[in-house]
């Protein structure tokens, strides 16, 4: 019933399949019936078209927005002052992608397939670094680990003189890698949770060492998920502004932001260039991805667990080091800001208790924003998965130009800075017949989140769809189950961990999102991210720290309830 074991020759097969890129992959699974070369059902194609049109809105906005002058555009695109930052952006994105892929995959395997101590705890904590708004993460790491920072002062007395500088390329690379590996971790961990253990068992029984089993059996099966997450890291790095600016690495987004008021035409033209490049990258990646092995999921009651043996504690140390820098480090710095503000602030001089001091710092003001954040995050995550699933089907099951176009637009759009997407959506909403009701409404805000973060759910959903064994569906069809029933009873349960991973990514991203929230939210709607931003931008670090800590705690809780526990039902 299970496809032929994929082997280490996958890449070679992929390369040799150049001639027949039309077929869904060199080593397509031995599924009965429905060849992937079939055209999609009409309804699905229509939905795909709608999604493609909707997701092209930011690019069309950039193209038609008044103010783009052809001459300045050409000049801006070809000048050294543009190309140098663009080159730096790409260099950084490649380096961060590679690192995040390694860290995310490693953590995912250790926490799902090994006997690592405390692995359930690590599984809950590992996605959380994603929830720090990038300017908070960068500021906290700078305050904690940069020269003259908290750690430096602590280490000074014991003779450690100079910490390495946390800036420029190496600083941006390190910080972005630490805060983006969850893009890889979540989908890959979900993938590992549904891998058929039989292949590994066979390989082990045949005498292969655990390392070789990992390389030749486990890794190829997880490859689509790894690639999916890595692409997200790449696009996120390209779009980031807050972190790279604070770490003093000059990238393309600086040129876009720097001229947004002073020379809007140039800013729009360069954003368009960035968007088109990203769409091209995604379309190219899709060509490569199509040739990859397809692997199927099973609902394994108990995934194979590999004893780490003498590597158990070294692996433990690595996990602690990664989460220590990406999660605990920032949390300590944020806590330090809060404590310092409370002790130094006017409120505590009268010998207040901690409770009243926290009250002075405004913890009570955070209750409503926290509730808002949780609700809008969950709603946006579910809406995103629902909107994207049809396209994931279209691209995962069928050969479809419409599907390819929708995929490129949805995923490529993730490279655009959030501000561009927010303004594009506002622009179209103002021009829609329903503008009076729609503009700066909740539905529009959710739509903005869907468009900005659709990519995150797209990749995870595609992996999930591709992993449903065609045989199962065919069997259900032959038994007479209707389409919706098949979807609900056969496919959805199998896809749930993958879809959940995508939803988890969207949830964490929405919880920290700023530009769309600031400029498209219904007036007066406060989230934790807007509170943190308001305090941090004026240098009120204690309040910013408190808001960030609540944000991390809330996201940890939601990740646990909605993503981790849900996927564990399949253990």
């Amino acid at each position, binding site marked *: 019933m299970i496809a032929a074991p994929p082997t280490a020759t996958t890449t070679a097969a992929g390369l040799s399949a150049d001639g027949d890129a039309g077929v869904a992959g060199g080593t397509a699974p031995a599924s009965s019936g429905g060849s992937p070369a079939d055209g999609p059902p009409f309804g699905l194609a229509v939905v795909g078209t709608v999604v493609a049109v909707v997701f092209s809105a930011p690019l069309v906005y950039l193209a038609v927005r008044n103010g783009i002058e052809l001459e300045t555009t050409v000049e801006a695109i070809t000048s050294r*002052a543009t190309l*140098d*930052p663009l080159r730096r952006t790409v260099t950084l994105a490649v380096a961060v992608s590679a690192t995040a892929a390694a860290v995310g995959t490693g953590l995912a395997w250790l926490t799902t397939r090994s006997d690592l101590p405390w692995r359930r705890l690590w599984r809950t904590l590992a996605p959380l670094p994603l929830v720090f708004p990038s300017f908070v993460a960068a*500021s906290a790491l*700078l*305050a904690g680990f*940069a*020269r*003259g920072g908290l750690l*430096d002062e602590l280490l000074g007395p014991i003779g450690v003189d100079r910490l390495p500088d946390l800036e420029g390329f190496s600083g941006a690379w390190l910080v972005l890698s630490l805060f983006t590996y969850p893009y890889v971790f979540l989908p890959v961990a979900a993938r590992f949770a549904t891998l058929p253990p039989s292949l590994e068992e066979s390989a082990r029984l045949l005498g292969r060492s655990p390392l070789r089993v990992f390389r030749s059996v486990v890794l190829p099966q997880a490859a689509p998920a790894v690639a999916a997450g890595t692409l997200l890291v790449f696009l996120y790095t390209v779009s980031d502004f*807050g972190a790279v*600016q*604070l770490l*003093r690495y*000059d990238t393309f987004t*600086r040129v876009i*932001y*720097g*001229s*947004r*008021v*002073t*020379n809007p035409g140039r800013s729009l033209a360069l954003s368009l260039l960035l968007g088109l490049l990203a769409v091209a990258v995604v379309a190219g990646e899709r060509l490569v991805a199509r040739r990859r092995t397809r692997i199927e999921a099973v*609902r394994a009651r108990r995934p194979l667990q590999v004893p780490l043996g003498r590597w158990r504690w070294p692996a433990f140390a690595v996990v602690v080091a990664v989460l220590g820098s990406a999660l605990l480090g920032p949390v300590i710095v944020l806590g330090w*800001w809060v404590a*310092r503000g409370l002790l130094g*602030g006017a409120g505590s001089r009268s010998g207040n208790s901690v409770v009243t001091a926290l009250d002075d710092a405004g913890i009570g003001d955070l209750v409503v924003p926290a509730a808002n954040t949780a*609700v*809008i995050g*969950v*709603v946006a995550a*579910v809406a995103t998965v629902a909107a994207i699933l049809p396209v994931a089907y279209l691209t995962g099951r069928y050969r479809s130009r419409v599907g390819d176009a929708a995929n490129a637009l949805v995923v490529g759009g993730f490279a655009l800075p959030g501000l561009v997407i927010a*303004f594009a959506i*506002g622009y179209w909403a*103002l021009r829609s017949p329903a*503008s009076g009701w729609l*503009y700066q409404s*909740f*539905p529009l805000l959710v739509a903005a989140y869907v468009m900005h973060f659709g990519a995150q759910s797209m990749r995870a959903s595609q992996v999930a769809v591709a992993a449903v064994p065609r045989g199962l569906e065919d069997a259900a069809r032959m038994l007479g189950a209707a389409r919706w029933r098949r979807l609900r*009873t056969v496919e*959805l*349960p199998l896809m*749930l961990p993958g879809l959940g991973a995508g939803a988890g990514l969207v949830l964490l991203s929405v919880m920290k999102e700023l530009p769309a929230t*600031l*400029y498209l939210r*219904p*007036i*007066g709607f406060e989230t934790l991210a*807007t509170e943190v931003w*308001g*305090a941090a*931008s*004026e*240098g*009120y670090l*204690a*309040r910013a720290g408190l808001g960030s800590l609540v944000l991390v705690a809330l996201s940890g809780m939601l990740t646990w309830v*909605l993503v981790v526990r*849900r996927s564990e*039902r399949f253990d």
Partner: protein
Amino acid sequence: MAVRRRPLSVVAGAVALAALLLVGLPACSSGNDRLVVYSGRSEELIGPLLERFSDETGVKIDVRYGDSPELALLIDQEGDASPADVFISQNPGAVGFLDQQGRLKPLPPDVVRRVPAQDHAEDRTWVGLSGRVRVLVYNTELVSEDDLPRSVLDLTAEQYRGEVAVAPTNGSFIDFVTAMRSELGDDQAREWLEGMADNDSPTYANNNAIVAAVGRGEVPMGLVNHYYNLRAKAEDPGVPSENWYFPAEDDVGSLLIVTTASKLGTTDRDDDAEELVEFLLSEEAQRFFGEETFEYPLVEGVAPPSEVPKLAELSVTRVDLDELGSGLRATQDLIDESGLAE
């Protein structure tokens, strides 16, 4: 292996309910009986004042907080459909941009006259609310007072190579360069920018980042607005950083930059808008700016915060900010050409 359907449907139900709630909410809260303020000043810096205004007058206010340049772009994009009645800006460049786009309405003469003539627009499209002075923040452990410059123009000297941080993409730095252009001319401004670039001046994201870096001793000095260091020290009094006000007579480095309030062209609530601006220029509000946010009140007779020198003791430059809007692009081009931002 029965499929467990219930948890999924429970979640779906909860989400649907929440979505309904969200869609329903704006219907209750919106309506045209409220004054809409787009504020580039964050809630910490103006929220309490707006609340007090509502309490005193009964005029209900909705505020959209954001970054001044983005809010200006948003208002411009919204055009005639803009829900905003009042725009409060943290930097003159953003107001200048809106003025240039013809999006502002003049305020009544008796309102703007509460501040000195140079702190409101000649055509009354904006009025200054509070002032911030450009200063050099320095680390007292790394720099002795004797080595500090008399003028901002001295910073291109070899002595300061690699020692002075700037935030070339930040609004207040851009405003400062625009002021320099109008005071000293484009050639001298270009020369200074190129001098700073040649002097390997490290660039930072914004004023906060510079103050933090100076406090850590990562860089000895930096060009910022005066209140950032005061706020940093309010949270952490042990930080070894101080403000240095350029002592040279009429130094363009000691620019006073105002934050502003404007009435938008699309408003049909002129009376409420004017009343709010008037309130922000009242003694009560002006005192708030001095005491709570460490800024300079602009209305005469209201004392500045105790932590800062009085304006009269400083040799502060004021520049005709009406020129700022039209000059922005040229300033940006100068900064880009100098290579300082890279």
